[in-house]
C-alpha cells in the first residue's frame, strides 16, 4: 500500500533555486551518514572495523533510513510504508543493537536483505510511474540495512567482500539520487501541485500534449517557452485562473511569470498521453486529480468525471424529474452539452420525463433562447464562449403602484381570496434542469438570472455543486447525499485550503478524495449566496466552508429511488 502524508506543496525553482530549510538540515546528516556507512564497508579491506566503528556505521544506516523516510514524506513521492520504511528501519535498528557484538549469523541477514532489495528493484520496470520511485526507495533503503549488517558481521575471506563493495557503491549512487535529486523532481505522468511565486501551480494531467495549468491569479503568464508565455484566465465554475500548455515528452520546465517575477516549475510528462483536459470539462477533471492527490493517491490520471454518467447520478436525475413532476410542472427546460456524461444524462432525463408526462425543451447557450420541445441537440461547449454577464433590471410590469416619495403608505390590495390549493406554474416559466458541465451550466444560470432563460428554479446535476456556479442568483437546487457542512466534507474543504487553495471544492474532487461512494439517499438542497457585499474594504473570513458566503440547506426528504 502506498502512502504520502503530504503529497502537495513541492517547491518550484524560483529563478534563484531555494528549498525548505528543514529539508536541507535533514539532507546533510543523511549524506554524511551515508559516507560513513559506505566508507566503512569499502575500508574493511585495510582497516577492520572495531566496536566503535561498527556502532557508528550502523547508527549511520539508521540515520539514512529515517532521514530518507522523512524527506519522502514531504515530497510528492509515494512511500511504501511497509517495504520502504518499516522493514529497512527495523533491520537497521537491529544492526545497531547488534553492533557492539560480533554476530556471525549476520551473513544470513545480509543475504536476505540483499535478495529483498533486488526483488524490489526487479519490480520497477513493470510498475506505474507513481510507484517506481517508491520501489526504488524500498530497494535502496533495504540495501542500506544490508550494508549495516555487513558491517557488524565478522569478515571471512576477502573475496566475500566483493559483492558488499558493489552493493555499497550502488547504495551510494541510489541514496544520493533519492536524497539530493529526486525530491525536486515531479512524479512522471502524475498531476502535480507546486509552490511558485508565493502561490500554488497545478499541472494536470502532466502528460505529453495539452495540459491544464492553474494559478492563483488571472493574468499570470505560463508556458514552456519563457519568450512566449500565455496569460491564465478564469474558467466558469472553477477557482483560480487557467491556461492550456503543451508539454513535450519527458522532463521539461514550465515557466510562470507574474509582474516582474518568474519561476521555473519542473515537469515530467513521461511518454504516454493522458486524458484530454483541453475541453470545457478540463477544470473539473483537474479538480478530481487534486482530490486524489490530497488523498495520497499518486496515480496517473486515467479519465475524467465527464467521460461517463455514474449510475448513482442517473438515479438522482430520475428522482429529480419525479420531484419536478410532483410540483405540478408539465415541462422542463433541459440544458446539456456534448460530453459523454451529459449526453447520457439527457437520455436518462428524457426517459424519466416521458414516464412522468413532462415535456422536455432544449436550451442552447449563446443567447438564442429556447428551442422547440425536444428539438435541440446538445449545446455548444466552446470553452471560450462568453456568457451573458449583466443582469437586466426587473422587466415585469404587473400593474404595480408607483413610487411613494411622500412617505404615505399604500394599502395593499386585498389578497386574491383563498388562493389556489397548490403551486401553479406561470406559463413559459418551466424549471431549468442542467446536466451539462461547468461551462454550459454557468451560461445557463446566468441566462436564468438575467431573464434570458425564464425558469422557475434551476435544478442542477450533482456534479455542479461548486461555489462559482452557486453564486449566480438563479434559484439553484442540487441533489446531494450528504450535507455540505458534514464533517467529512469540511475535512475535504480544509484539505483543499491547505494543499490546493485555488481549487474550488467540487463533487469531482470530493469523490476522488473520499474514494468510496456515499451511501445515503439523496435530498434536494437549495443553494444561494446569503450575504451581500456591503463593504469592499473588508473581506470575509471564518471557518472553511464548501460555499463561502452562501448557504446550502436541505429542503426535501430523501428522494425516492436514490
Amino acid at each position: 500500500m502506498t502512502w504520502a502524508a503530504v503529497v502537495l506543496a513541492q517547491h518550484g525553482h524560483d529563478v534563484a533555486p531555494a528549498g525548505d530549510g528543514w529539508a536541507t538540515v535533514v539532507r546533510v546528516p543523511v549524506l554524511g551518514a551515508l559516507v560513513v556507512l559506505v566508507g566503512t564497508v569499502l575500508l574493511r579491506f585495510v582497516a577492520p572495523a572495531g566496536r566503535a566503528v561498527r556502532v557508528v556505521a550502523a547508527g549511520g544506516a539508521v540515520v539514512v533510513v529515517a532521514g530518507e523516510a522523512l524527506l519522502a514524506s514531504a515530497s510528492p513521492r509515494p512511500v511504501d510504508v511497509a517495504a520502504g520504511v518499516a522493514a529497512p528501519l527495523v533491520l537497521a535498528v537491529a544492526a545497531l543493537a547488534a553492533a557492539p557484538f560480533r554476530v556471525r549469523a549476520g551473513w544470513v541477514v545480509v543475504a536476505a536483505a540483499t535478495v529483498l532489495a533486488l526483488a524490489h528493484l526487479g519490480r520497477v520496470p513493470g510498475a506505474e510511474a507513481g510507484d517506481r520511485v517508491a520501489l526504488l526507495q524500498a530497494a535502496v533503503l533495504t540495501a542500506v540495512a544490508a550494508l549495516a549488517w555487513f558491517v557488524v558481521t565478522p569478515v571471512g575471506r576477502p573475496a566475500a567482500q566483493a559483492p558488499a563493495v558493489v552493493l555499497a557503491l550502488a547504495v551510494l549512487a541510489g541514496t544520493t539520487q533519492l536524497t539530493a535529486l529526486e525530491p525536486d523532481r515531479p512524479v512522471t505522468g502524475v498531476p502535480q501541485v507546486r509552490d511558485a511565486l508565493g502561490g500554488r501551480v497545478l499541472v494536470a494531467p502532466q502528460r505529453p500534449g495539452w495540459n491544464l495549468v492553474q494559478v492563483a491569479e488571472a493574468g499570470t503568464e505560463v508556458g514552456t517557452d519563457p519568450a512566449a508565455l500565455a496569460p491564465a484566465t478564469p474558467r466558469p465554475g472553477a477557482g483560480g485562473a487557467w491556461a492550456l500548455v503543451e508539454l513535450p515528452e519527458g522532463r521539461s520546465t514550465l515557466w510562470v511569470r507574474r509582474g516582474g517575477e518568474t519561476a521555473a516549475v519542473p515537469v515530467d510528462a513521461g511518454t504516454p498521453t493522458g486524458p484530454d483536459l483541453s475541453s470545457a470539462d478540463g477544470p473539473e477533471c483537474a479538480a478530481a486529480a487534486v482530490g486524489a492527490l490530497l488523498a495520497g493517491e499518486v496515480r496517473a490520471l486515467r479519465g475524467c468525471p465527464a467521460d461517463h454518467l455514474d449510475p448513482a447520478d442517473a438515479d438522482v436525475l430520475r428522482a429529480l424529474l419525479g420531484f419536478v413532476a410532483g410540483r405540478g410542472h408539465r415541462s422542463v427546460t433541459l440544458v446539456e452539452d456534448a460530453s459523454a456524461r451529459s449526453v447520457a444524462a439527457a437520455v436518462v432525463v428524457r426517459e424519466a420525463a416521458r414516464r412522468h408526462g413532462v415535456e422536455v425543451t432544449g436550451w442552447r447557450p449563446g443567447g438564442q433562447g429556447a428551442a422547440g420541445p425536444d428539438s435541440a441537440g446538445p449545446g455548444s461547449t466552446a470553452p471560450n464562449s462568453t456568457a451573458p454577464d449583466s443582469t437586466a433590471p426587473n422587466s415585469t410590469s404587473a400593474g404595480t403602484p408607483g413610487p411613494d416619495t411622500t412617505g404615505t403608505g399604500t394599502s395593499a390590495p386585498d389578497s386574491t381570496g383563498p388562493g389556489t390549493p397548490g403551486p401553479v406554474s406561470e406559463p413559459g416559466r418551466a424549471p431549468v434542469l442542467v446536466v451539462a458541465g461547468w461551462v454550459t451550466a454557468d451560461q445557463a444560470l446566468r441566462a436564468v438570472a438575467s431573464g434570458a432563460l425564464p425558469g422557475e428554479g434551476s435544478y442542477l446535476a450533482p456534479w455542479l455543486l461548486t461555489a462559482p456556479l452557486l453564486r449566480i442568483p438563479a434559484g439553484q437546487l442540487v441533489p446531494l447525499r450528504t450535507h455540505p457542512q458534514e464533517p467529512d466534507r469540511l475535512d475535504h474543504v480544509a484539505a483543499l485550503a491547505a494543499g490546493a487553495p485555488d481549487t474550488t471544492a467540487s463533487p469531482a474532487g470530493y469523490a476522488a478524495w473520499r474514494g468510496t461512494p456515499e451511501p445515503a439517499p439523496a435530498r434536494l438542497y437549495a443553494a444561494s449566496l446569503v450575504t451581500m457585499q456591503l463593504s469592499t474594504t473588508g473581506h470575509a473570513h471564518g471557518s472553511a466552508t464548501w460555499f463561502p458566503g452562501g448557504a446550502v440547506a436541505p429542503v426535501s426528504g430523501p428522494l425516492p429511488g436514490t
Partner: protein
Amino acid sequence: MAIARRVPALLVVLLTVAAVTSLGPPAAGHATVTTSSVRGTDGQKYSVTNHLTAEARDRGGQRREWLLVWAGGEQDFLAVLDATKGSRTYGAVVNTATIDGLTGNEPHHMQYLWHKGQRVYAGGLMSDTVFVLDVSRLPEVRLAGVNLPADTPCGSVPDAFWVLRDGTAYGSYMGGPNVAGPCTYTNGETRVGNGFAGSPGEVVRIGPDGRTLAEAPAATAAGEDPASCLNVPALPQATCANPHGIQVREDLDRMVTSDFFEVRHLLQPNVPPGANIARDTVRIFDIGDLGAPKLLSVSKMPDGPRVEAEPAEEEPRPVMETTVTNRPEHRGAFASTMNGAIYYTPDITAAQPRWRQVFDDATAFAKAFPADPPRSGGSAGAWLQTSPDDRFLFHVVLRGGPGSTHAEAGLVYVLDIRELLRSGGDPRCSVDTLAEVTAGGAEPDCPALAGVVPIVDPTTGGPHWGAMDNFDLGRDGYYHETDDIRRLAVSNYFVAQTGLDGDHRVCLVDVGKRGQLSLDRDFRDRGQHRPCVDFDRTRWPHGARGPARPHGVLFAVADRDVR
C-alpha cells in the same frame, strides 16, 4: 547518588502524567457537561450540549442575572455570561451551550426582549434553521425544538423574532421560498418566488416546540414597483418583501416589519450598477388572527434632505430595523435605515400610515465628535428599540460613514421621545433641512439626544446589535421585570461575509435616569483592564475552539429567580 538513580523513574512518572493529562478530559476542562436533544421533522436528532464552569454553580441563594450571547465559531453556541451587578464573576462566561453537529449556522438574532416563561428563539442565517431553547433553568440551557429549512417551504434566511403572549413567536424570513416558483402559504394564498435567499420573504409563526404553525406572505398579491424592487431572477410580480426587523403590538393586533435586501447579491456582477437592491419599505400586518397575519400596508420611507455622492447612501434604504411603542396610549412605531435615518409614524393602525424622518445619526455623531463628525451615510445603523415606558429610543450605529474622520467609531445613543409621542396623531417634527441633519429637528416635538457613547472598533465592522436589561433586583432578593431601563448590552459584530465584521466584543452600557450613557467598565474579562468581554479568545468552556463571532444578545434570569 540515590536521587540520581531515581531520576529515570521520576522521568517515567512525569512523562506518564503528562501523557494522561494531554489525552484526558476534553478541552472542556472542569466544565460540567449536559446534553439535551430533540428530533427534527427530518427524523434526525439535534442536540445542544452545556459546558457549565465552576462559576456557573449555585451560590447558596444569591440570585443571578445572565446575558445570553448567540455566537458563531468553529462550533456555534449560546454563551451564558454572568451579568449580575456586583458579582465576583461579573462578565465571566459560565456556560457555552454548543450546537452539536450542525456547523456554519451563522448565529444571528433572537427575540428583542425576553420575559419569564418564554423560550429563546435563536436563528441561523446560513443554515436557515431556528433553535428553540429552554432557558428556565439558567445558566443551563436545553434544546426544546428545532425548525429546519424544509419546515418553512415559502421562506428562508430567518432574521429576528418576536415572542407572543402565548409563547409562540413570529419570525422574519428575509429570503424567498426554498424552491423557486409558486408557493402556497398556510392561509391559502400563493406567491411566486425566485428561490432560496431571494424574494419574497415571509413571516413565520413558530411554536415553542419548533414546529411551524403558520407561514404568511409578506408580499402583496398585486406586486410592487419593479423599478424600486429589483428581483433577480425577475419575478412576475416584483416585490420588496424581504423582512428583517419585526415587532408586534398584540393589544393593537398589529405587526410591523422592515425590509432589508434581497440578500443573495454581491454588488457585482449580479446586479446592474445603480440598481436598488436595498429596500425602503415597511409593512404592517393585521394579526387579529395570530395564525394568519394579513398584510395591510406597504410604506416607502421618504427621501431626506441629504444629497449623497453615492446614491446608495441616501436616507431611506435599507430599512434594517423597526420598533413599536409600548404603552396603551401610544400607537406609533419607528424605523431606521443603514444610512442614518430614523423615521416615525404616529399610528400603525392607520390604513395609510404616514412616515416622517425625525432624526439623523449625524446629530449623534456631531455630539460625540464635535470637531470633525463622521458622515451618517453608510453608517450602518442597526438595533433600534423603544424602552418599555416609551421614554427612550435606543439605537446602535456600526461606524462613521466610509471615508469619514472617526469612521472607526460606532455609537450607542438614546433619544428622549416623550415630546414626539405627546404630539399624538399629529407630530410636527420633520428633518427636512441639512441643518436639522446635524443639529437635530427644529420642531419642539423632535426627539432630543439624551446620551451618546462611542464604541471604537478598528475592524471593518463595529457595534451592531443590542438588548435592554429589563430586570431589576428587588428588595426581596428576587429579580422583577422593570420598565425602567438602566442598562444595555451591545455586540460588535455584523456578518463577516459582507465585509462588515467587528472586533467581537460584547459591552454593557449603563443608562442614567435622564438617558445619559456610559460604558460599564466593570464588565470585562478577568485580568483585563479594557472594558467589554472579548469573544476573540482561545479557550471556551467547551474547549480550545478559538475566536467566536457574537451577534444576538439577550438578558435573562432563571425562572426560580424572577417574580
